[in-house]
């Protein structure tokens, strides 16, 4: 019974700490769907948000094994949380940008840059809706799509 889980890991912001986390996932065969990292403002810690999949026992082990890593301060297994993900894409200028913009707005986004031959757009929404957005975007022939991975915060 595989389930999707969002786990936040608060770690000491020191060199090599990310390797300790990803190494753990790699060595034990755990799956990482997305991973985002950034320092927590005004602290010596960073926050990692990991989206993973596994059976309840695997998820339990992941959390316990993460706890065991010495520079890990806290592991938060989210149940009640708000998740957001960002996506950026390059759309050729020949496409109908008014339609593109309307689509972006529906997903908390916008056109953020217009270059010589393409427009850069962004959207920020729930991960699943970002998936839908990317599907809808296909008809505008995006040249490149970049997803950020999930960030999450508890309700």
């Amino acid at each position, binding site marked *: 019974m595989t389930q999707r889980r969002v786990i936040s890991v608060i*770690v*000491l912001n020191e*060199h*090599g700490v990310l*390797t*300790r986390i990803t*190494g753990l996932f790699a*060595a034990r065969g755990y799956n990482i769907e997305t991973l985002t990292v950034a320092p927590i403002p005004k602290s010596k810690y960073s926050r990692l948000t990991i989206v993973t999949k596994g059976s309840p*026992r695997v998820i*339990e*082990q992941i959390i*316990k*094994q993460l*706890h*065991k890593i*010495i*520079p*890990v*301060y806290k592991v938060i297994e989210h149940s009640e949380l708000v998740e957001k993900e960002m996506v950026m894409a390059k759309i050729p200028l020949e496409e109908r940008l008014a339609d593109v913009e309307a689509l972006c707005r529906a997903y908390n986004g916008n056109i953020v840059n217009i270059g010589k031959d393409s427009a850069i757009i962004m959207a920020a929404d729930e991960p699943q809706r970002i998936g839908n957005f990317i599907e809808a975007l296909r008809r505008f022939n995006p040249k490149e799509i970049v997803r950020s991975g999930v960030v999450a915060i508890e309700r």
Partner: protein
Amino acid sequence: MADMSGAQMVVEAMRREGVEVVFGYPGGAIMNVYDEIYKHRYFQHILTRHEQAAVHAADGYARATGKVGVAFVTSGPGFTNAVTGLATAYMDSIPLVVISGQVPLSMIGTDAFQEIDAVGISRPCTKHNYLVQSVEELPRILAEAFYIARSGRPGPVHIDIPKDVTAQVGPFNYPEEVRLETYRPTIRGNMRQIKKAVEAIREAKQPLFYLGGGIIHSGSADLVRKLVDATQIPAVETLMARGTLPYDHPQLLGMVGMHGSYAANMAMSEADLLIALGPRFDDRVTGKLSEFARYAKIIHVDIDPSSIGKLVHVHYPIVGDLKAVLEEMVPLVEERIDPGRYQQWRQTLNHYNELHPITFEDSDEVLKPQWVIRRIGERLKGRARIATDVGQHQMWTAQFYPFTRPREFITSGGLGTMGFGFPAALGAKRAVGDGEVVVNISGDGSILMNIQELITAVQYRLPVINVILNNNYLGMVRQWQTFFYDKRYSETDLSIQPDFVKVAEAFGGVGYRVSTKEEFDQALDDALNRGVVALIDVVVDRHENVLPMVPAGGSLYNMLLEYKD
């Protein structure tokens, strides 16, 4: 405190931590540290002849004493040679601090001479590791390393120090006490859980103590003995827990697992409650997981939460230091449990024991390895430390040696490292001194994996007695080939061998080759009397198997009790 160089800091930290011996091997990147060792001599340095042996020796010292073992190696190959030692200690939760030299900071990442990504390699086989970035952080890291190695679930810690850091000078601010915000092992068990567990014991009809290595690490064998005596509940020991109960304890059913006793494995299979004290449900113990302890509820006490529920569902998890938990548990048990309750259960298990005891068929024509081990036990019971390598001889030792106390048995359980026994025995001998004999029981395969340490033993007068149970085979693999591979003895025949007597003599020790009981007795007596480094090459039955056996992946209650050709 005055400023000092990084190398001085290393030596000073050893003094502060009360380190009396360091095992190691110098080389380019760690020469600054060795220069300080030359000047100070706060501790003895034992020069092994291979870095792997240095770490195993530190490990043997740690297993014999419970203190942190220390090893120094250089960068590159010095470090990579040490990795097997780190992994061995990691799997068995042995506290070590291993310091390696590294190329100077400015050269890291340039593929410099003897450069290797040491922390990248040691990360998965240490409890924690450090690459030191500046001399300012070195004192803190040294103190943290010792603290992390010995606290919580113990384990090896590796510090990689670039050569320029050992030369730089900085303030030596050695923390009196280490406190880490991100690392706080749970010591005290949850009292409500402990009470629930005691109630479960009270209600059980067929409870069983499943004793693991955590008992030895936490120093709680005395409390376990109290607990077993107060309840008279039968007990089984894992390989790592041997010696928790004395071999002749009335409740001890012997070792559990692949080569455990019939009674121990049947007890596991029929128990209605397992009281697991510091084991980790290793596959060599549980056999087929779906059939493991199928009628039992499980109480599991462990300091490492990730050990609990990792493989088997646990009904009463208790996270905490075993000693602290047992201190709470013993009085409750003494007050609440009536030992008479389990009389029937004990009788059943005693019956199993009478049915299929751990035994062997002795012979007058050829020496049986089991006889040799039993003989060593008769001669040295209670006054020797017994190290082993890995293979048949290790399992026979676990089955037949009369263990009387914790830390008596020094063996690589989790990683199963051949070549561990001799250097570990050297470390143990250094720890126990003249008062106790140290015997390394080995095989003709294993002993060659660190035979060069004979010279270390001779140089430092560490008279370890090596008993080689020589069957001209890689015996355990040969046994599996006999049982499971239609006797296709692929690369296990060791008929071509060195003359072990001459090997011993060439290094300055004494060698014996024996093939009868009388000769063995004489050789052992002679080695004991002379107090020198010895190799006793014992010619044993080539085809003896370790029995009983649970084939890998099989259920504990399906044991192979005999093998007939």
